[in-house]
Protein backbone atom coordinates (compact mmCIF):
# COMPACT_ATOMS: atom_id res chain seq x y z
CA UNK A 1 0.00 0.00 0.00
CA UNK A 2 1.32 3.38 -0.93
CA UNK A 3 0.33 6.06 1.54
CA UNK A 4 0.47 9.78 1.34
CA UNK A 5 2.13 10.94 4.53
CA UNK A 6 0.06 14.08 4.74
CA UNK A 7 -3.31 12.42 4.50
CA UNK A 8 -2.77 9.76 7.14
CA UNK A 9 -4.87 10.58 10.20
CA UNK A 10 -2.96 8.07 12.29
CA UNK A 11 0.48 6.82 11.48
CA UNK A 12 2.52 4.40 13.58
CA UNK A 13 6.05 3.71 12.47
CA UNK A 14 7.77 0.62 13.86
CA UNK A 15 6.33 1.15 17.32
CA UNK A 16 7.28 -1.01 20.33
CA UNK A 17 5.78 -0.77 23.77
CA UNK A 18 7.49 -2.41 26.74
CA UNK A 19 6.00 -2.04 30.20
CA UNK A 20 8.20 -1.97 33.30
CA UNK A 21 11.33 -1.89 31.21
CA UNK A 22 14.42 -2.79 33.15
CA UNK A 23 12.49 -4.24 36.09
CA UNK A 24 11.75 -7.83 37.00
CA UNK A 25 8.31 -7.99 35.39
CA UNK A 26 9.15 -6.56 32.02
CA UNK A 27 6.37 -7.17 29.47
CA UNK A 28 6.55 -6.55 25.78
CA UNK A 29 3.03 -5.38 24.95
CA UNK A 30 3.47 -4.37 21.33
CA UNK A 31 6.13 -5.12 18.76
CA UNK A 32 6.88 -3.68 15.32
CA UNK A 33 3.57 -1.95 14.83
CA UNK A 34 3.20 -0.15 11.49
CA UNK A 35 -0.14 1.42 10.80
CA UNK A 36 -1.70 4.05 8.55
CA UNK A 37 -5.27 5.18 8.92
CA UNK A 38 -6.68 7.35 6.13
CA UNK A 39 -9.35 10.00 6.63
CA UNK A 40 -12.86 8.68 6.88
CA UNK A 41 -11.77 5.10 7.52
CA UNK A 42 -13.33 2.94 10.20
CA UNK A 43 -10.54 0.71 11.44
CA UNK A 44 -11.18 -2.02 14.01
CA UNK A 45 -8.51 -3.72 16.07
CA UNK A 46 -9.37 -7.26 17.15
CA UNK A 47 -7.30 -9.84 18.94
CA UNK A 48 -7.08 -12.20 21.93
CA UNK A 49 -7.40 -10.60 25.34
CA UNK A 50 -4.18 -9.13 26.66
CA UNK A 51 -2.74 -8.68 23.17
CA UNK A 52 -2.23 -4.96 23.59
CA UNK A 53 -5.24 -3.67 21.61
CA UNK A 54 -6.05 -1.07 24.23
CA UNK A 55 -2.39 -0.15 24.58
CA UNK A 56 -2.26 0.51 20.84
CA UNK A 57 -5.25 2.82 21.15
CA UNK A 58 -3.69 4.60 24.13
CA UNK A 59 -0.48 5.10 22.18
CA UNK A 60 -2.46 6.95 19.51
CA UNK A 61 -4.13 9.03 22.21
CA UNK A 62 -0.78 9.76 23.91
CA UNK A 63 -2.10 8.24 27.12
CA UNK A 64 0.93 5.96 27.08
CA UNK A 65 4.17 6.67 25.30
CA UNK A 66 5.95 4.28 22.92
CA UNK A 67 9.19 2.68 24.03
CA UNK A 68 10.42 2.91 20.47
CA UNK A 69 9.09 4.31 17.21
CA UNK A 70 6.92 7.24 16.33
CA UNK A 71 3.20 7.92 16.60
CA UNK A 72 1.73 10.66 14.41
CA UNK A 73 -1.83 11.95 14.52
CA UNK A 74 -2.88 14.36 11.79
CA UNK A 75 0.75 14.57 10.79
CA UNK A 76 1.95 15.80 14.19
CA UNK A 77 3.37 13.98 17.20
CA UNK A 78 0.65 12.27 19.27
CA UNK A 79 1.39 14.55 22.22
CA UNK A 80 0.79 17.68 20.19
CA UNK A 81 -2.40 16.17 18.75
CA UNK A 82 -3.65 15.49 22.27
CA UNK A 83 -2.85 19.01 23.40
CA UNK A 84 -4.71 20.32 20.33
CA UNK A 85 -7.67 18.11 21.23
CA UNK A 86 -7.59 16.40 17.86
CA UNK A 87 -9.45 13.31 18.95
CA UNK A 88 -12.44 12.20 21.00
CA UNK A 89 -12.29 9.09 23.14
CA UNK A 90 -14.79 6.53 24.45
CA UNK A 91 -13.85 3.90 27.02
CA UNK A 92 -15.50 0.61 27.87
CA UNK A 93 -16.97 2.23 30.99
CA UNK A 94 -18.92 5.40 30.30
CA UNK A 95 -16.71 7.39 32.76
CA UNK A 96 -19.39 9.99 33.35
CA UNK A 97 -18.77 12.30 36.29
CA UNK A 98 -21.44 11.53 38.86
CA UNK A 99 -21.55 15.16 39.99
CA UNK A 100 -22.50 16.47 36.57
CA UNK A 101 -25.85 16.22 34.84
CA UNK A 102 -25.82 14.46 31.46
CA UNK A 103 -25.67 17.70 29.51
CA UNK A 104 -22.81 18.98 31.65
CA UNK A 105 -20.94 15.73 31.12
CA UNK A 106 -21.27 16.09 27.36
CA UNK A 107 -20.05 19.68 27.58
CA UNK A 108 -16.89 18.82 29.49
CA UNK A 109 -14.46 18.75 26.52
CA UNK A 110 -15.91 22.02 25.23
CA UNK A 111 -15.47 23.54 28.66
CA UNK A 112 -11.83 22.46 28.65
CA UNK A 113 -11.49 24.16 25.30
CA UNK A 114 -12.93 27.38 26.64
CA UNK A 115 -16.05 27.41 24.45
CA UNK A 116 -18.69 29.92 25.59
CA UNK A 117 -21.53 28.60 27.68
CA UNK A 118 -24.43 29.33 25.31
CA UNK A 119 -22.56 27.79 22.44
CA UNK A 120 -21.59 24.63 24.23
CA UNK A 121 -25.06 24.10 25.67
CA UNK A 122 -26.50 24.34 22.17
CA UNK A 123 -23.91 21.90 20.86
CA UNK A 124 -24.51 19.46 23.71
CA UNK A 125 -28.26 19.56 23.09
CA UNK A 126 -27.72 18.84 19.44
CA UNK A 127 -25.46 15.89 20.25
CA UNK A 128 -27.83 14.47 22.80
CA UNK A 129 -30.47 14.60 20.10
CA UNK A 130 -28.15 12.71 17.78
CA UNK A 131 -27.63 9.91 20.31
CA UNK A 132 -31.35 9.99 21.12
CA UNK A 133 -31.04 11.28 24.65
CA UNK A 134 -33.17 14.39 24.25
CA UNK A 135 -35.16 14.94 27.40
CA UNK A 136 -32.44 13.50 29.63
CA UNK A 137 -30.30 16.64 29.72
CA UNK A 138 -30.84 17.35 33.41
CA UNK A 139 -30.69 13.72 34.55
CA UNK A 140 -27.71 12.44 36.48
CA UNK A 141 -25.68 9.46 35.25
CA UNK A 142 -27.04 7.05 37.86
CA UNK A 143 -30.56 7.64 36.60
CA UNK A 144 -29.67 6.26 33.16
CA UNK A 145 -29.29 2.67 31.99
CA UNK A 146 -25.90 1.34 30.86
CA UNK A 147 -26.68 1.77 27.18
CA UNK A 148 -27.89 5.33 27.69
CA UNK A 149 -24.78 6.18 29.70
CA UNK A 150 -22.58 4.89 26.91
CA UNK A 151 -24.52 6.94 24.36
CA UNK A 152 -23.91 10.00 26.49
CA UNK A 153 -20.20 9.26 26.55
CA UNK A 154 -20.21 8.94 22.74
CA UNK A 155 -21.95 12.30 22.54
CA UNK A 156 -19.21 13.69 24.77
CA UNK A 157 -16.52 12.27 22.48
CA UNK A 158 -18.20 13.91 19.48
CA UNK A 159 -18.63 17.26 21.20
CA UNK A 160 -15.41 18.74 19.87
CA UNK A 161 -16.18 17.55 16.33
CA UNK A 162 -13.00 15.50 16.29
CA UNK A 163 -11.45 14.27 13.10
CA UNK A 164 -10.53 11.12 14.95
CA UNK A 165 -12.59 9.04 17.34
CA UNK A 166 -10.82 6.50 19.57
CA UNK A 167 -13.09 3.80 20.96
CA UNK A 168 -11.92 1.18 23.44
CA UNK A 169 -14.48 -1.65 23.50
CA UNK A 170 -17.26 0.89 23.96
CA UNK A 171 -20.05 -1.67 23.79
CA UNK A 172 -18.26 -4.48 25.61
CA UNK A 173 -20.46 -4.22 28.67
CA UNK A 174 -23.77 -4.11 26.81
CA UNK A 175 -26.15 -6.91 25.97
CA UNK A 176 -26.24 -8.27 22.43
CA UNK A 177 -29.43 -6.50 21.37
CA UNK A 178 -28.42 -3.14 22.75
CA UNK A 179 -25.03 -3.65 21.19
CA UNK A 180 -26.50 -4.23 17.73
CA UNK A 181 -28.65 -1.14 18.05
CA UNK A 182 -25.65 0.89 19.22
CA UNK A 183 -23.64 -0.46 16.28
CA UNK A 184 -26.31 0.82 13.94
CA UNK A 185 -26.30 4.21 15.63
CA UNK A 186 -22.52 4.45 15.60
CA UNK A 187 -22.49 3.54 11.93
CA UNK A 188 -24.92 6.36 11.18
CA UNK A 189 -22.94 8.82 13.27
CA UNK A 190 -19.77 7.81 11.46
CA UNK A 191 -21.46 8.31 8.10
CA UNK A 192 -22.92 11.67 9.02
CA UNK A 193 -19.83 13.12 10.69
CA UNK A 194 -17.28 11.52 8.34
CA UNK A 195 -15.05 11.05 11.36
CA UNK A 196 -12.15 8.65 11.24
CA UNK A 197 -12.64 5.91 13.82
CA UNK A 198 -10.13 3.62 15.51
CA UNK A 199 -12.15 0.95 17.26
CA UNK A 200 -10.99 -1.74 19.67
CA UNK A 201 -13.30 -4.73 20.08
CA UNK A 202 -13.36 -8.46 20.71
CA UNK A 203 -16.59 -9.05 18.82
CA UNK A 204 -16.09 -10.33 15.27
CA UNK A 205 -19.64 -9.45 14.20
CA UNK A 206 -19.29 -5.92 15.48
CA UNK A 207 -15.93 -5.42 13.78
CA UNK A 208 -17.18 -6.63 10.41
CA UNK A 209 -20.42 -4.69 10.54
CA UNK A 210 -18.76 -1.38 11.36
CA UNK A 211 -15.35 -1.40 9.73
CA UNK A 212 -13.78 -0.64 6.44
CA UNK A 213 -10.65 -2.38 7.64
CA UNK A 214 -9.93 -4.85 10.45
CA UNK A 215 -6.53 -5.41 12.03
CA UNK A 216 -6.14 -8.87 13.54
CA UNK A 217 -3.56 -8.94 16.30
CA UNK A 218 -1.56 -11.82 17.76
CA UNK A 219 -1.23 -12.67 21.41
CA UNK A 220 1.48 -10.97 23.43
CA UNK A 221 3.73 -9.51 22.23
CA UNK A 222 1.02 -7.90 20.14
CA UNK A 223 1.72 -7.69 16.46
CA UNK A 224 -0.56 -6.97 13.52
CA UNK A 225 -0.89 -10.43 11.95
CA UNK A 226 -3.32 -9.72 9.20
CA UNK A 227 -5.46 -6.97 7.70
CA UNK A 228 -8.97 -7.72 6.47
CA UNK A 229 -10.52 -5.23 4.05
CA UNK A 230 -14.27 -5.12 4.38
CA UNK A 231 -15.86 -4.10 1.10
CA UNK A 232 -19.44 -3.86 2.23
CA UNK A 233 -21.46 -1.02 0.75
CA UNK A 234 -22.32 1.98 2.88
CA UNK A 235 -24.87 2.76 4.33
CA UNK A 236 -25.13 -0.53 6.12
CA UNK A 237 -28.19 -1.84 7.86
CA UNK A 238 -29.91 -5.02 8.94
CA UNK A 239 -29.58 -6.35 5.38
CA UNK A 240 -25.78 -6.11 5.65
CA UNK A 241 -25.65 -8.98 8.11
CA UNK A 242 -27.14 -11.26 5.49
CA UNK A 243 -24.75 -10.51 2.66
CA UNK A 244 -22.21 -13.04 1.43
CA UNK A 245 -19.35 -10.55 1.72
CA UNK A 246 -20.27 -10.13 5.38
CA UNK A 247 -19.96 -13.85 6.07
CA UNK A 248 -16.74 -14.07 4.10
CA UNK A 249 -15.18 -11.27 6.08
CA UNK A 250 -16.37 -12.83 9.35
CA UNK A 251 -14.84 -16.17 8.38
CA UNK A 252 -11.56 -14.54 7.40
CA UNK A 253 -11.27 -12.74 10.74
CA UNK A 254 -12.20 -15.87 12.66
CA UNK A 255 -9.63 -17.99 10.89
CA UNK A 256 -6.87 -15.51 11.57
CA UNK A 257 -7.91 -15.18 15.18
CA UNK A 258 -7.55 -18.94 15.55
CA UNK A 259 -4.00 -18.64 14.38
CA UNK A 260 -3.32 -16.03 16.99
CA UNK A 261 -1.69 -17.87 19.87
CA UNK A 262 -3.79 -18.23 22.96
CA UNK A 263 -7.07 -17.61 21.20
CA UNK A 264 -9.74 -20.07 22.23
CA UNK A 265 -12.94 -19.85 20.27
Amino acid at each position, binding site marked *: MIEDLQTAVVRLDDVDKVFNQGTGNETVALKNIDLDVRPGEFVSIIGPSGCGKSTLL*RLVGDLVQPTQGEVLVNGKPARQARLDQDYGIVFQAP*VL*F*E*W*RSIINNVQLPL*ELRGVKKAQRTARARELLGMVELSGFEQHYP*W*QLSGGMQQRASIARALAIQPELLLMDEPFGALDEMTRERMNMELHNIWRRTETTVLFVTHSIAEAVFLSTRILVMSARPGQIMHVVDVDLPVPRGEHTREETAYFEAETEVREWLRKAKGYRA
Partner: protein
Amino acid sequence: MAAQGKGLSGVSKQLHDYLPALVLFVAVLLVWEFGVALLEVQQFLLPAPSVIGDAFQENLDRLIHVGWFTTKEALGGFVIGCAAGILVAFATARWTLASETLMPFAIAANSVPIIAFAPIVNNWFGVDNPLSKMVIVAVIVFFPMMINTVRGLTLVDPAALELMRAYAASEVEILTKLRFPNALPYMFNAFKIAATLSMIGAVVSEYFGGNRSALGIFITQEAAQFRFANAWAAIIVASIVGVTFYLVVLLVERVTIPWHSSVRGEQAR
Protein backbone atom coordinates in the same frame (compact mmCIF):
# COMPACT_ATOMS: atom_id res chain seq x y z
CA MET B 1 -34.42 3.63 41.41
CA ALA B 2 -36.27 3.63 44.69
CA ALA B 3 -35.28 7.24 45.20
CA GLN B 4 -37.25 8.41 42.19
CA GLY B 5 -40.59 8.25 43.95
CA LYS B 6 -39.23 10.54 46.65
CA GLY B 7 -41.01 13.74 47.55
CA LEU B 8 -44.52 12.66 46.68
CA SER B 9 -45.23 10.75 49.84
CA GLY B 10 -42.92 13.08 51.80
CA VAL B 11 -44.50 13.49 55.20
CA SER B 12 -45.99 10.05 55.69
CA LYS B 13 -42.79 8.40 54.49
CA GLN B 14 -40.68 10.44 56.88
CA LEU B 15 -43.04 9.58 59.69
CA HIS B 16 -42.73 5.93 58.76
CA ASP B 17 -38.93 6.22 58.78
CA TYR B 18 -38.68 7.91 62.13
CA LEU B 19 -41.53 6.20 63.94
CA PRO B 20 -39.45 3.34 65.40
CA ALA B 21 -36.93 5.83 66.75
CA LEU B 22 -39.67 7.96 68.28
CA VAL B 23 -41.36 4.97 69.86
CA LEU B 24 -38.08 3.81 71.33
CA PHE B 25 -37.39 7.30 72.67
CA VAL B 26 -40.69 7.47 74.53
CA ALA B 27 -40.32 3.89 75.76
CA VAL B 28 -36.83 4.50 77.14
CA LEU B 29 -37.96 7.68 78.88
CA LEU B 30 -40.85 5.85 80.52
CA VAL B 31 -38.75 2.89 81.63
CA TRP B 32 -36.08 5.27 82.94
CA GLU B 33 -38.61 7.40 84.85
CA PHE B 34 -40.47 4.56 86.49
CA GLY B 35 -37.47 2.30 86.82
CA VAL B 36 -35.67 4.93 88.86
CA ALA B 37 -38.73 5.40 91.06
CA LEU B 38 -39.44 1.67 91.48
CA LEU B 39 -35.88 0.58 92.22
CA GLU B 40 -35.34 3.67 94.34
CA VAL B 41 -32.13 4.54 92.53
CA GLN B 42 -30.14 7.23 94.29
CA GLN B 43 -30.11 10.71 92.78
CA PHE B 44 -26.34 10.68 92.35
CA LEU B 45 -26.43 7.42 90.45
CA LEU B 46 -29.07 8.34 87.92
CA PRO B 47 -31.63 11.11 88.29
CA ALA B 48 -35.06 10.54 86.76
CA PRO B 49 -35.80 12.30 83.46
CA SER B 50 -38.40 14.48 85.14
CA VAL B 51 -35.83 15.65 87.69
CA ILE B 52 -33.39 16.44 84.89
CA GLY B 53 -36.19 18.25 83.08
CA ASP B 54 -36.84 20.40 86.15
CA ALA B 55 -33.13 21.13 86.50
CA PHE B 56 -33.07 22.06 82.84
CA GLN B 57 -35.87 24.55 83.28
CA GLU B 58 -34.49 26.04 86.45
CA ASN B 59 -31.04 26.63 85.00
CA LEU B 60 -32.13 27.46 81.49
CA ASP B 61 -30.55 30.93 81.37
CA ARG B 62 -27.27 29.73 82.78
CA LEU B 63 -27.26 26.67 80.53
CA ILE B 64 -27.81 28.78 77.43
CA HIS B 65 -25.05 31.10 78.55
CA VAL B 66 -22.43 28.39 79.17
CA GLY B 67 -23.64 26.34 76.22
CA TRP B 68 -23.19 29.24 73.82
CA PHE B 69 -19.73 29.98 75.22
CA THR B 70 -18.53 26.44 74.55
CA THR B 71 -20.32 26.29 71.20
CA LYS B 72 -18.28 29.28 70.08
CA GLU B 73 -15.08 27.48 71.08
CA ALA B 74 -16.17 24.39 69.18
CA LEU B 75 -17.15 26.41 66.10
CA GLY B 76 -13.91 28.37 66.11
CA GLY B 77 -11.86 25.18 66.41
CA PHE B 78 -13.94 23.51 63.72
CA VAL B 79 -13.34 26.34 61.27
CA ILE B 80 -9.61 26.67 62.01
CA GLY B 81 -8.98 22.90 61.99
CA CYS B 82 -11.00 22.16 58.85
CA ALA B 83 -9.51 25.08 56.94
CA ALA B 84 -5.99 24.04 57.88
CA GLY B 85 -6.69 20.38 57.06
CA ILE B 86 -8.09 21.22 53.63
CA LEU B 87 -5.25 23.62 52.87
CA VAL B 88 -2.55 21.13 53.80
CA ALA B 89 -4.34 18.38 51.88
CA PHE B 90 -4.49 20.46 48.71
CA ALA B 91 -0.87 21.45 49.11
CA THR B 92 0.37 17.88 49.59
CA ALA B 93 -1.96 16.24 47.08
CA ARG B 94 -0.43 18.50 44.47
CA TRP B 95 2.78 16.51 44.79
CA THR B 96 2.19 12.77 44.76
CA LEU B 97 5.46 12.09 46.50
CA ALA B 98 4.77 14.58 49.28
CA SER B 99 1.36 13.12 50.03
CA GLU B 100 2.63 9.55 49.88
CA THR B 101 5.41 10.40 52.29
CA LEU B 102 3.30 12.48 54.63
CA MET B 103 0.15 10.34 54.76
CA PRO B 104 1.57 7.61 57.03
CA PHE B 105 2.65 10.34 59.44
CA ALA B 106 -0.71 12.05 59.32
CA ILE B 107 -2.38 8.72 60.04
CA ALA B 108 0.03 8.02 62.88
CA ALA B 109 -0.45 11.53 64.26
CA ASN B 110 -4.19 10.93 64.13
CA SER B 111 -3.72 8.16 66.70
CA VAL B 112 -2.05 10.51 69.17
CA PRO B 113 -4.39 11.38 72.04
CA ILE B 114 -4.49 15.10 71.28
CA ILE B 115 -6.38 15.85 74.46
CA ALA B 116 -3.14 15.24 76.37
CA PHE B 117 -1.92 18.55 74.95
CA ALA B 118 -4.77 20.50 76.54
CA PRO B 119 -2.86 21.57 79.66
CA ILE B 120 0.11 22.72 77.58
CA VAL B 121 -2.07 24.76 75.25
CA ASN B 122 -3.79 26.22 78.29
CA ASN B 123 -0.40 27.45 79.40
CA TRP B 124 0.33 28.91 76.00
CA PHE B 125 -2.76 31.01 75.48
CA GLY B 126 -4.12 31.26 79.00
CA VAL B 127 -6.61 29.02 80.80
CA ASP B 128 -9.44 31.53 80.46
CA ASN B 129 -8.78 32.28 76.84
CA PRO B 130 -11.27 30.51 74.52
CA LEU B 131 -8.47 30.39 71.95
CA SER B 132 -6.70 27.62 73.87
CA LYS B 133 -9.79 25.39 73.53
CA MET B 134 -10.17 26.35 69.88
CA VAL B 135 -6.60 25.29 69.22
CA ILE B 136 -7.16 21.88 70.82
CA VAL B 137 -10.38 21.37 68.87
CA ALA B 138 -8.62 22.51 65.69
CA VAL B 139 -5.81 19.98 66.15
CA ILE B 140 -8.30 17.18 66.91
CA VAL B 141 -10.27 18.04 63.78
CA PHE B 142 -7.27 18.69 61.56
CA PHE B 143 -6.11 15.13 60.97
CA PRO B 144 -9.37 13.45 59.93
CA MET B 145 -10.03 16.44 57.70
CA MET B 146 -6.65 16.32 56.05
CA ILE B 147 -6.54 12.55 55.65
CA ASN B 148 -10.00 12.38 54.11
CA THR B 149 -9.36 15.27 51.75
CA VAL B 150 -6.11 13.77 50.50
CA ARG B 151 -7.93 10.50 49.95
CA GLY B 152 -10.68 12.22 48.00
CA LEU B 153 -8.21 14.10 45.87
CA THR B 154 -6.08 11.07 45.10
CA LEU B 155 -8.55 8.16 44.93
CA VAL B 156 -9.79 9.23 41.52
CA ASP B 157 -11.06 6.80 38.91
CA PRO B 158 -8.01 6.25 36.66
CA ALA B 159 -10.28 6.17 33.61
CA ALA B 160 -11.58 9.63 34.49
CA LEU B 161 -8.01 10.83 34.79
CA GLU B 162 -7.26 9.34 31.38
CA LEU B 163 -10.28 11.08 29.94
CA MET B 164 -9.11 14.43 31.27
CA ARG B 165 -5.66 13.85 29.86
CA ALA B 166 -7.13 12.80 26.51
CA TYR B 167 -8.76 16.23 26.34
CA ALA B 168 -5.51 17.94 27.31
CA ALA B 169 -6.93 19.27 30.56
CA SER B 170 -4.43 21.30 32.55
CA GLU B 171 -3.44 20.36 36.10
CA VAL B 172 -5.66 23.16 37.41
CA GLU B 173 -8.62 21.93 35.38
CA ILE B 174 -8.07 18.36 36.57
CA LEU B 175 -8.06 19.70 40.12
CA THR B 176 -11.18 21.83 39.81
CA LYS B 177 -13.25 19.64 37.53
CA LEU B 178 -12.25 16.17 38.68
CA ARG B 179 -10.27 15.92 41.90
CA PHE B 180 -12.15 18.51 43.90
CA PRO B 181 -15.69 17.24 43.09
CA ASN B 182 -14.40 13.72 43.68
CA ALA B 183 -13.11 14.80 47.10
CA LEU B 184 -16.34 16.48 48.21
CA PRO B 185 -18.04 13.34 49.57
CA TYR B 186 -14.86 12.46 51.48
CA MET B 187 -14.68 15.98 52.83
CA PHE B 188 -18.27 15.87 54.00
CA ASN B 189 -17.54 12.64 55.82
CA ALA B 190 -14.73 14.47 57.57
CA PHE B 191 -16.99 17.46 58.31
CA LYS B 192 -19.46 15.10 59.97
CA ILE B 193 -16.72 13.52 62.09
CA ALA B 194 -15.38 16.98 62.89
CA ALA B 195 -18.81 18.29 63.86
CA THR B 196 -19.26 15.80 66.71
CA LEU B 197 -15.58 15.79 67.66
CA SER B 198 -15.41 19.57 67.99
CA MET B 199 -18.12 19.83 70.65
CA ILE B 200 -16.76 16.87 72.63
CA GLY B 201 -13.23 18.22 72.25
CA ALA B 202 -14.24 21.62 73.55
CA VAL B 203 -16.05 20.22 76.61
CA VAL B 204 -13.32 17.73 77.45
CA SER B 205 -10.49 20.24 77.07
CA GLU B 206 -12.31 22.45 79.55
CA TYR B 207 -11.69 19.77 82.13
CA PHE B 208 -8.11 20.99 82.40
CA GLY B 209 -9.39 24.34 83.51
CA GLY B 210 -11.19 27.07 81.69
CA ASN B 211 -13.43 30.06 81.80
CA ARG B 212 -16.13 29.95 84.47
CA SER B 213 -18.81 30.48 81.90
CA ALA B 214 -17.89 27.30 79.98
CA LEU B 215 -20.08 24.21 79.73
CA GLY B 216 -17.36 21.74 80.73
CA ILE B 217 -16.55 23.74 83.83
CA PHE B 218 -20.23 23.92 84.69
CA ILE B 219 -20.56 20.15 84.42
CA THR B 220 -17.54 19.41 86.61
CA GLN B 221 -18.56 21.96 89.22
CA GLU B 222 -22.14 20.76 89.47
CA ALA B 223 -21.01 17.13 89.62
CA ALA B 224 -18.46 17.98 92.31
CA GLN B 225 -21.25 19.48 94.40
CA PHE B 226 -23.45 16.43 93.86
CA ARG B 227 -26.02 18.39 91.82
CA PHE B 228 -26.15 15.60 89.28
CA ALA B 229 -29.45 16.65 87.73
CA ASN B 230 -27.83 19.94 86.76
CA ALA B 231 -24.82 18.11 85.35
CA TRP B 232 -27.11 15.88 83.32
CA ALA B 233 -29.02 18.87 82.02
CA ALA B 234 -25.72 20.36 80.87
CA ILE B 235 -24.72 17.07 79.24
CA ILE B 236 -27.98 17.16 77.32
CA VAL B 237 -27.19 20.70 76.19
CA ALA B 238 -23.80 19.53 74.89
CA SER B 239 -25.49 16.64 73.14
CA ILE B 240 -28.14 18.86 71.56
CA VAL B 241 -25.48 21.23 70.26
CA GLY B 242 -23.48 18.30 68.87
CA VAL B 243 -26.50 16.76 67.14
CA THR B 244 -27.53 20.15 65.73
CA PHE B 245 -24.02 20.70 64.45
CA TYR B 246 -24.07 17.30 62.80
CA LEU B 247 -27.48 17.88 61.23
CA VAL B 248 -26.38 21.23 59.82
CA VAL B 249 -23.46 19.51 58.11
CA LEU B 250 -25.87 16.86 56.82
CA LEU B 251 -28.12 19.57 55.42
CA VAL B 252 -25.27 21.38 53.72
CA GLU B 253 -24.13 18.06 52.28
CA ARG B 254 -27.58 17.44 50.86
CA VAL B 255 -27.55 20.82 49.13
CA THR B 256 -23.96 20.64 47.94
CA ILE B 257 -23.63 17.10 46.62
CA PRO B 258 -27.15 15.93 45.74
CA TRP B 259 -25.65 13.62 43.14
CA HIS B 260 -23.74 11.44 45.58
CA SER B 261 -25.04 8.03 46.59
CA SER B 262 -24.76 8.85 50.29
CA VAL B 263 -27.31 11.60 49.77
CA ARG B 264 -29.70 10.07 47.28
CA GLY B 265 -30.04 7.00 49.48
CA GLU B 266 -29.22 3.37 48.94
CA GLN B 267 -28.79 2.54 45.31
CA ALA B 268 -31.16 0.03 43.81
CA ARG B 269 -29.73 -3.39 44.40
